[in-house]
């Protein structure tokens, strides 16, 4: 799919002056077991893309280390040979953050899949970066504990990738993002040195490098161990399915619930196309005539849940809900969530391809932005369904397209870019939880003025002077922004006049 684009991108990403493949293979195989250094096309093929499969590139070499010492060796050799390195976990990222470089080494951390320690006294787990997110919660389930951040890919995504992207999930409004749920990282620097970031205490002397490292998309160091916080599982959770016949009423209900002093464990919204598609797929009992539905989950002790749920119902009624159903038991709760959780595959049934966007906006702008997206959908002639984390204003518009129709992918990407810019216009951001990667690199030019981008590059250089760690991702070069022609959004005025009318 779309070889033209990937080829162009890959060429732009490749660092100049990298060592030849033969030189590097010789250096790596001299220092590492031969079977962990992959060089032929067939072995490299599985690494050619991550969850953003529209972008593909074969790495020059892939290495699958099994020990921290081997990671250090790879880094030392690549550093000495000026060769860029892209670290990769489970490869489920949605922004192309793990897209390989044709003249670079792909460092797979798949073999780092061990839960090293579970500390029930301090409520922490020490895990290797390749451990799957859900595997942590599964491993401590019998202790009544869990790991809170739950990105929708949690069955497959790895915790190292979660740290690199500062992943969120359904429960972030109440329980926070990855950055709020980790205490310590062990990293290997670009020079191959080990460095401990954070500590076993709740704070660490000096700068908060844990905050800086989290969400840095593999540009500042390679994560080789993570200590995560574990939380006691809530005694009870119940979810209310609240239907509306008006988009604005649904948007207002989100703010009203929060103004009422409730922090829901999850507060999700689906619009009409998403409701219809998911209902046809999983039969969760969603009202298909609704304009929007909210799923509002509250958790805590039994007494707390009863008290909060009564408030949610009262607020929803006052906000003009047409129907309110509260789960009576865990089976019904699972059923209500089934539709939301199946939203992406449901789209796959009604469209050959879909493109998942990820912007965050102030909650007050929810209905305006949804209406704006509907107008853009009309303008670009592409259908869109909206499924999102309404509680934290994090939108996931799913643009439906057919990659086999000439021009549709390009039109979809343009539509996606316009959605990013719409979010910025409403005081939001181009990515809430999927990261910038290669996907939103151009929109970064719109979100940030030159001085901020220069500051990002200076911080990068403090960790990676030669720009060898995942180069070309997350922060665009000023040169690239000049080519893209985007200007920073100033006072809500976008550089594209045709969008201002939307």
């Amino acid at each position, binding site marked *: 799919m779309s070889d033209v684009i990937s080829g162009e991108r890959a060429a732009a990403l490749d660092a100049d002056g990298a060592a030849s493949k033969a030189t590097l293979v010789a250096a790596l195989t001299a220092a590492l077991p031969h079977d962990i250094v992959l060089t032929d096309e067939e072995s490299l093929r599985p690494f050619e893309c991550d969850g953003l499969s529209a972008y593909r590139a074969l790495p020059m070499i892939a290495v699958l280390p099994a020990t921290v010492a081997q990671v250090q060796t790879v880094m030392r050799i690549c550093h000495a040979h000026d060769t860029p390195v892209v670290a990769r976990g489970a490869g489920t990222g949605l922004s192309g953050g793990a897209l390989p470089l044709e003249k670079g080494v792909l460092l797979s951390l798949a073999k780092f899949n061990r839960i090293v320690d579970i500390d029930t006294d301090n409520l922490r787990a020490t895990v290797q970066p390749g451990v799957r997110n859900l595997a942590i919660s599964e491993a401590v389930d019998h202790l009544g504990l869990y790991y809170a951040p739950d990105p929708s890919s949690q069955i497959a995504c790895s915790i190292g990738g979660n740290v690199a992207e500062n992943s969120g999930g359904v429960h972030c409004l109440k329980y926070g993002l990855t950055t709020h749920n980790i205490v310590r990282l062990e990293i290997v620097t670009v020079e191959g040195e080990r460095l401990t970031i954070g500590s076993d205490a709740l704070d660490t*002397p000096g700068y*908060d490098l844990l905050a*800086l490292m989290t969400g840095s998309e593999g540009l500042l160091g390679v994560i080789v161990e993570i200590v995560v916080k574990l939380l006691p599982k809530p005694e009870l959770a119940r979810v209310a399915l609240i239907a509306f016949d008006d988009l604005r009423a649904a948007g207002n209900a989100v703010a009203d619930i929060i103004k009422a002093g409730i922090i829901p464990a999850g507060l999700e919204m689906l619009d009409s196309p998403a409701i219809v598609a998911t209902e046809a797929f999983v039969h969760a009992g969603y009202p298909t005539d609704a304009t929007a539905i909210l799923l509002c989950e509250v958790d805590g002790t039994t007494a707390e849940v009863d008290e909060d749920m009564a408030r949610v119902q009262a607020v929803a009624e006052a906000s003009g809900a047409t129907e309110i159903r509260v789960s009576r038991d865990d089976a019904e709760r699972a059923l209500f969530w089934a539709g939301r959780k199946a939203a992406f595959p449901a789209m796959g049934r009604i469209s050959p391809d879909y493109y998942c966007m990820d912007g965050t906006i102030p909650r007050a702008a929810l209905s305006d932005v949804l209406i704006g997206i509907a107008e853009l959908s009309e303008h670009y002639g592409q259908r869109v369904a909206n499924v999102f984390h309404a509680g934290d204003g994090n939108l996931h518009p799913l643009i439906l397209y057919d990659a086999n129709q000439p021009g549709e992918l390009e039109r979809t990407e343009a539509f996606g870019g316009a959605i990013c810019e719409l979010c910025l216009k409403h005081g939001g951001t181009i990515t809430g939880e999927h990261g910038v990667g290669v996907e939103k690199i151009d929109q970064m030019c719109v979100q940030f003025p030159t001085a901020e981008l220069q500051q990002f590059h200076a911080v990068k250089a403090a960790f990676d002077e030669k720009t060898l760690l995942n180069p070309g991702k997350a922060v665009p070069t000023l040169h690239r922004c000049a080519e893209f022609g985007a200007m920073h959004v100033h006072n809500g005025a976008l550089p594209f006049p045709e969008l201002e009318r939307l």
Partner: protein
Amino acid sequence: MSTTRQPSEDRTEAIAAQVEDAYQRAAPLRIVAGQSKSFLGEPVAEAATETLAVHAHSGVVSYDPGELIITARAGTPLRDIEAVLAENHQRLAFEPPHYGPTATLGGTIATGVSGPARPYAGAARDFVLGCRIVNGRGQVLRFGGEVMKNVAGYDLSRLMAGAHGTLGVLLEISLKVLPSPRAQLTQVFEHEAPEALAAFSAWAARPWPISGAYWEAGRTHLRLSGAQASVDAARDALGGEPLDEDQSFWSGLREHERDFFKRGDMPLWRISCAPASPMAKLSGTWSLDWGGAQRWLVSDAPAETVREAAATHGGHATLYRGHDKPRQHPLSAAHVAVHRRLKAAMDPAGILNPGRIGV
């Protein structure tokens, strides 16, 4: 305490101009606001003879209770922020210590201090969503934003929390705020220190609505906050004796107004460690806050002994009161190098509060 609020004033241009001028001359600046927390961190180098005053840069820029976000200028008095939030039944959930009536929002975030609720609600840095700063070149930069989730670019706004102004002068900060709990109560238990630590661990492993856990002089204080029914149910299950003056107890702890923090001339150490770490064998008087993760020690033990004991359990020791130097736990050589490079990336001439973080 006065109820008058400090007038709103935007001094961005003047602050940026002063930093840019200092950058041109490579003249180090001492950043000053309420001075309530100047005793934290290392002293600013004596070479910094020029003062950059930010307390007049003040006022709430935006606050919509439905968004759970407040944005205010760095010089805004902390008590003004808390008053505005309280009018809407909201609060800063990290319960920042003021350490005096002149405390500002900027100083609170720059020092990164958090109160008794910290292990349960999160730290100052956890609530930072975005900020505007002046970097060491005098450039006004904005990072993060006024939204709950934002992963565009490095998280430089959270990095400002606890950086003591050495990476940039805070101009404006956007914080996540939370509803005030509808109910709160405190139960007291008779415990020796090791028993208290065991109780902290056992309580934390269950989903009780805990918002504070403090031990001092044979008594554990457990604060419960949340829905009325939930707080009542937890009290009935956990037992203990009710504490009547519970608001003043926790504010007194937060502000270090309790006798424990005032008595004598002996050094006061803060030891931050994994919460279930066993009691260190150090001479002196202890209290245990943050469910065991923040311990206070009044002791004349040598600094190296205290630091070694703290480091045994992955922790560190900070001198809160006393004359020893440095006050902060020393960084490893590798971290000193990273800190210097990062400082140079943000403040190439090294003019912002030099010496304050000790590297």
